[in-house]
């Protein structure tokens, strides 16, 4: 699913330059659950952004779902994000003026399908994440865990093959975080989705198929290799 070769990313230039990633190479097979761990500033989010096609200003080669991301123009890359990848963020990024159903259906605006069928699909994925009775609730009326479930439902809306989760439990208490992780595991095992989750809490995602540790922009540990 993911083949990264010699990925380097730096912010700024010259003496001011910060190296977020230094020649990272890794492979992630299809259908596995991968956790990327590391301290804050180790390059985890940058790596996830590159895999998801949000960041294109890097050196090296990133092939995701059989496509070399460098070869794609903006429109193609946008279509790739829309159809192949589902993003889940630490801060949920739900729109406050939209209810759960509308937040999830937002992904439909950038897809090719018929938007009139979006509410139906949004309801389907919200039911899948256990929010059957919260369809018309606005973000302000939901708990942190419920918000993150809505965000996961939004990521699932376009039936992606890859879920990229950036600190999905970072804003949740341990119990709620555990429930969210269980949901990711279920998506991986029952729906066969490839899940790459970034976390700095190593105790979570214990049942990950693969664990990658980043330090100072480098892969320092990968289990299994």
């Amino acid at each position, binding site marked *: 699913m993911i083949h990264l070769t010699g990925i380097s990313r730096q912010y700024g230039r010259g003496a001011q330059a910060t190296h977020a990633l230094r020649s990272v190479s890794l492979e992630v097979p299809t259908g596995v659950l991968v956790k990327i761990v590391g301290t804050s500033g180790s390059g985890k*989010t*940058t790596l996830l*952004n590159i895999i*998801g096609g*949000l*960041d294109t200003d890097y050196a090296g080669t990133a092939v995701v779902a059989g496509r070399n991301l460098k070869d794609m123009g*903006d*429109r193609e*890359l*946008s*279509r790739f*994000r*829309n*159809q192949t990848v589902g*993003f889940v*963020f630490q*801060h949920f*990024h739900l*729109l406050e*003026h939209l209810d759960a159903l509308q937040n999830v259906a*937002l*992904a*439909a*605006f*950038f*897809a*090719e399908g018929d*938007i009139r069928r979006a509410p139906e699909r949004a309801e389907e994925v919200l039911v899948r994440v256990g929010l059957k009775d919260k369809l018309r609730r606005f973000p302000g009326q939901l708990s942190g865990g419920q918000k993150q479930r809505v965000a996961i439902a*939004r990521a699932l809306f*376009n039936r992606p093959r890859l879920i990229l989760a950036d600190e999905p439990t970072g804003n949740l208490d341990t119990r709620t975080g555990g429930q969210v992780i269980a949901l990711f595991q279920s998506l991986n095992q029952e729906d066969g989705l490839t899940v790459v989750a970034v976390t700095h809490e190593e105790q979570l995602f214990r049942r990950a198929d693969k664990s990658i540790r980043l330090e100072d922009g480098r892969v320092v540990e990968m289990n299994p290799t």
Partner: protein
Amino acid sequence: MKAAHLRRLIRQNLRRNRKNFVFSSIGIVAGISSFVFFVALGSGIKRVVSTEIFPLEANRIQVVPPAAQFDAWVPGRALDDEALGRLAKIPGVTAVYPRMKLSVPATMALIGSQFPPQDLARLAGLPGMTPAMVEGVKKLQVWMEIMADGIDPRLVKGDALFGDFADPPFGRPIPVLLSKRLVEIYNSSFAKVRALPPISEVLIPYVPSLPLTLNDSYIDRDMSGTRIPVRIKVVGTSHQALLGGVTMPLDTVRRINRQFGGEAAARVYDMAILEVPSSDKLSGVQQAIRGLGFDIDTSQKRMAESVGFAVTLVTLGFTLLSLAMVAVAAVNIAHTFFMIIYERKREIGLMRALGASRRDIRGLILGEAGLVGALGGLAGIALGAAACAVVNLLAVRFLPDFPFKPHQFFGYPAWLFVSGVVLSVAFCLAGAFSPAGRAARLDPASTLSGR
């Protein structure tokens, strides 16, 4: 992004930012409404100039004998029946209407006290007639030198509403037409000041026949020849009638001229009006007329064009002022969009993560601006039209009467409404262009991580 999806998203965003957009589009609404107001006013005034003051008939050409008279003896330059025949043969000319001036002076003495009492009683019974007006008529004492000309009755068909416009049998009053412009000036200034009744379609049938003395002048009292008293009867008003006098049937003038000046005075015309079916044939006909040695009288057209040009200039000045307002409003729109984009940075980042391309984001912002422009333009048009209606009402009601005072001061050409919306949309798009570009260039990775 599909167009239908984009439209839906634009509507959704517009609803959400309703307040911001309403405030930022106030300038657009004000600018477009003043644009509509001034253009409509200019258009209305130009309409009055071209239809009432200097009525232009695009498909008619006024032919006159050559202005330079040094070679007037050359045969063929006089505007006689033979010349009319040659003019009629010009390809594209469908009709020729000759005009002839009355070759003898004439006078009129209007003495109200000499009007038959039964005519005065009939006047008093007319709607709108006040006792003061009847008194004004009774006290009337006017001695006038009258100019007159004769016109082909076909040219004024439909204008003679109250009698037959043809040379009358001996002893009957001569039917005459008054100039609509002259009547307008009389009604709005002369009659009002002197408490005289205005000349209208109600009054004309009841105006008694008036005395006219042919071969008479108040200026030259030593005129030779017999003075002949006749009577004239006003049968209507016409744009074709002589401005400073009366217009009679051509045969009547020809007969009078023959009586006083012999056969030669009855054969030469002062003007011929040529009718051309379509304006694309005008230049060819004009060339042929000049080729025959005649001139074309364009004084009326030039005057209308001069006044029209002056009105256009003033209108243009105010229009530019309105457009400057819209341009300033576009800057305001730009500020609003920069602010909105700053506030929606994360949302834009999220959209990019969900699959929006840079083009989609640019289209979304420009679409929102376009819709704000269209709605602002429509509101501006509505406000402008309402302002026109109110001002028109006040002007009609409270402005003192003046010559050619119209009932409708404003004109509404269809292009005005279309251009109102188009300008509004164009300025809003121009205002949002830079913010849209900035939104499209936002780095989604940075905005989502809060950098």
